[in-house]
């Protein structure tokens, strides 16, 4: 009897280890433990027929064999199941399938650029000031040293609402409103929408500006250059030079236009910069003493600089956008790229 138990245990262990599939394993389980005719079931019955003195030893041996084989069955079952779950024919998650993306909204590139520019100047200590889009002739022109009949008014084609009311052609009138309300030191930016009666491939009748003003004792044009050089670095990264060219805006003297080295070719010359290696990005200068007089500041004591940056221009350079109108068409195929 002891011999038969040991023999069955060996046989079972060998066959279980060799079972090729879960089905074969199940058949084996029935063969071993099936209620009718299972090998261990039969053996258990046989043990019951042994003489009383032989039963404890054989019963113990049989139980050990059953436990061992049962454990082995479970282990083999796990092995085979795992093989099935990971084998080449198993159902799998195709992880290369495109992810299901949540529906999200996006910011418009212009307001993103506007925020970027504001953040750069806010970090340098500038504060935001705002003013109305419908401006008086006085704030938009006259206080900025452009009296009626001044030919410089031709530089900014203007939309009129009434004889003395215009859609502001720049955010510079915010300078005037701020200086009339506050005393130096002043360090402000005025972001906003502006209007020019002009429309073609490179001009939109509406565009955005960030105007800056710093007025205090001891401010000079070198400070203007320093601040704007810093601005170029913060927005476009280091290594792009900024240069000033003399120019004319009635409310500054000296006046300058600012070019930076082309973002696309870094100064080598390409299609973006028309081969020159430089792109014009801003107008600037020292606040004209007459502007200070108009707001009641003493130009002998107070000096200051002002600059105006076109937001569309910066956005076009940052994002490689060739046509200004794309910003206002609101075509999702464009907007969803940002």
């Amino acid at each position, binding site marked *: 009897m002891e011999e038969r138990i040991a023999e069955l245990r060996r046989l079972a262990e060998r066959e279980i280890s060799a079972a090729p599939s879960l089905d074969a394993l199940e058949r084996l389980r029935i063969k071993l433990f099936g209620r009718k005719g299972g090998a261990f079931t039969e053996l258990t019955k046989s043990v019951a027929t042994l003489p009383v003195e032989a039963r404890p030893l054989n019963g113990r041996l049989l139980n050990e064999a059953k436990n061992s084989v049962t454990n082995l069955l479970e282990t083999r079952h796990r092995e085979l199941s795992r093989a099935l779950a990971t084998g080449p024919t198993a159902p799998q998650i195709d992880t290369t399938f495109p992810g299901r993306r949540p529906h999200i909204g996006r910011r418009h590139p212009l307001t993103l650029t506007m925020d970027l520019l504001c953040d750069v100047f806010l970090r340098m200590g500038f504060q935001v000031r705002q003013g109305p889009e419908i401006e008086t002739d006085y704030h938009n022109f006259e206080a900025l040293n452009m009296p009626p009949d001044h*030919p410089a008014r031709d530089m900014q084609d203007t939309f009129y609402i009434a004889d003395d009311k215009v859609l502001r052609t720049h955010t510079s009138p915010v300078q005037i409103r701020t200086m009339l309300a506050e005393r130096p030191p002043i360090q402000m930016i005025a972001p906003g929408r502006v209007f020019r009666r002009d429309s073609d491939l490179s001009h939109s009748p509406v565009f955005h500006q960030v105007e800056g003003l710093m007025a205090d004792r001891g401010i000079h044009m070198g400070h203007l250059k320093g601040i704007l050089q810093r601005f170029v670095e913060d927005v476009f990264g280091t290594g792009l030079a900024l*240069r000033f060219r003399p120019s*004319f805006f009635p409310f500054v003297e000296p006046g300058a236009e600012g070019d930076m080295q082309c973002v696309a070719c870094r100064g080598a010359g390409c299609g973006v910069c028309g081969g020159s290696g430089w792109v014009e990005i801003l107008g600037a200068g020292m606040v004209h003493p007459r502007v200070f007089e108009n707001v009641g500041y003493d130009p002998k004591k107070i000096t200051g600089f002002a600059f105006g940056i076109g937001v569309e221009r910066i956005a076009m350079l940052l994002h490689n956008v060739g046509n200004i109108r794309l910003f206002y068409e609101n075509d999702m195929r464009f907007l969803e790229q940002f």
Partner: protein
Amino acid sequence: MKVLWSWLRELADVEARPDDVAHRLTFAGLEVEEIKPIEEPTPTVPAAPPPAGPDHLLEINVTPNRADCLSVFGLAREVRALLGRPPRNSRPARIAEQGPSLEGEIEVSVVHPDVCPRYMGRLVLNIRVGESPEWLRYRLRHMGLRPINNVVDVTNYVLLEYGQPLHAFDADRLAGRRIDVRRQEGEGHLLTLDGQRRSLQNGDVLICDGEHPIALGGIMGGLNTEIHPETRSVFIESAYFDASTIRRTSKRLKLQTESSYRFERGVDIQGVPKALDRCASLIREIAGGEIAQGRIDAYPRRVSRRKILFDPSSVKRHTGVRATAAECAATFERLGFALRRRPRGRLDVAAPSWRVDIEREIDLVEEVVRVKGFEHIPAVLPAVRLVPRAHAAEPSRSAEGLVRDILVSAGFQEVVSLPFVSAQILHVFGSGGETPAGAVGILNPLSEDLHYLRPSLLPSLLQALATNVHHGRRSLEIFEVGSIHTGGTGASTEPSEIPMAAGLLAAPPRPKREAFLEVKGFVETLLERLNTSDAALVAGSLPPWYVEGEGLVVTVGKNPIGWLGSVRSEIAARYDATGPVLAFELRLEPLLQRREVPRKARPLARFPSVVRDLSFIIDEGTTAESIRQGIASQRIAWLEEAQPFDEYRGPQIGPGKKGLTFRLRFQHPDKTLTEEEVNGALLQVREHLQTIGASLREAESGI
């Protein structure tokens, strides 16, 4: 301004290459935008050096302050200064007077010297009108003027050469052989050289003969005294007209000429005689004839040079550039400024008559730095002594940013639109028919489509929808933050500018009710995120573009601040919408002022709450909100919240009725509620519902 390189080189008398000169000009404030080679051979000009190499045309952007550079001579003067050469005087006009004395031939009277501070004239007799020589026509043509005949061409040539506008009258056609320069009084008209009948108004400068107006002073001559092939004697006018007067007339008539362009910006009052003599001599050279002796010069009040006290230290003070007194003086001398040295390095500087832009010390500072080069301006950061201050009036940009962020996180795409609408669109958005009252109109719109400032953001959002529908996109969730304008069409009312946020949802597959609740939910979330605890969405009167009964008014502290609802389908259809379109519009200011209040945390419940759903059938006209309020008013113990969450209709419910399910949540602060306690409370709710006519459906379910 276009300038021929061969001509510029001749007058500047310098050896240099065009691109070097262009570079120097650009970095001194006269931006050369283009250098174009000229294909045809350069003709030889009498008394000038022979052409050297191929010619070029320079396109120069002359800013409005540099009227002195609106001529070849003026630019040549600038080029010499920039290249470090001493200034030269303009050609001394050796004039050969042969004819009779001008006096007695033509009488000139300047009636109003305020509009014409200087008026000069000469008479040339016995000329032969014909075609100009090729070299002259070549120069006119390339600089943008059409050759006409030798007399007119010479006046134009000298205009280009010296920047002084000139005019030639047929002297034999001057009635009464006299010229009066005066302001127009009352209305009148004049047939100008271009054949247009121009209406005259008070204040226009007129040149008249004994009977009629013969020229619009400083702008264009009259057809009645035009030079024609039989003209034998010409009266040449060289004058200085008041800039503002010329500009006003030119603007009103929308007539800008080479002449008015220069007078508006200011010509050189001391250059008037030089140009006159040059013109007379050149006419004699080209068209023959004799120059009458003497010239008219009506110049009652002499204009003298402005003297400016200049301190060289001001250069550093304004620009950070170091410039010595000697360096400044040398620059001024090269530019033709007169100097008188004063103690401590200071200078009395008198700008030449052609530099009308030089008025004060800062203008001289600019000259020094401009000629030295802006690359010498150091880049340094200022030491800031700013006292940061809170600015209560400032509509916080960061709050606007918060609105954007909330809407973006809710899945809306931001758009930015042109803020204009047409009258037609205003009609569509009006209740139909009436004039677009309340919208702010533009007096000089670019086109009819851009005639008014938008009184609502909705037309912009619908336009964006249309654009995308055309590209095959049917569902869209977009928003815009921007200003609208209303009122102010009359002279008495001020237009107001209102910052708004508006969103649009176009979602064809969704039933209208679902889309409506979605938009309502967006607005509720936005209000909640902005800390507007006293905001409410209530029934009320909506703008005509919303469907009656399918919208709500948004209020904050009982004041309406916006709307949400279904957009009328006939409006949406105009923008090619293919399904329901829902929108919301909110004024930002009442929302943004409230966000600063910090949120206060509520303690969390320590014991579990019990939730029960209750379904019942009720009249169609009874709103979920009225039932909710009714339940709340019963003050049932431990009932924390009662919210409608489902609504259904169908044959088993019957007409005029609807089924509603409310979810009730019970919560005790100090213990876990027992089944009996919850059932007791629930019974109270059921009793209340029965009193308002609800018939309760099958047993409630619990969670």
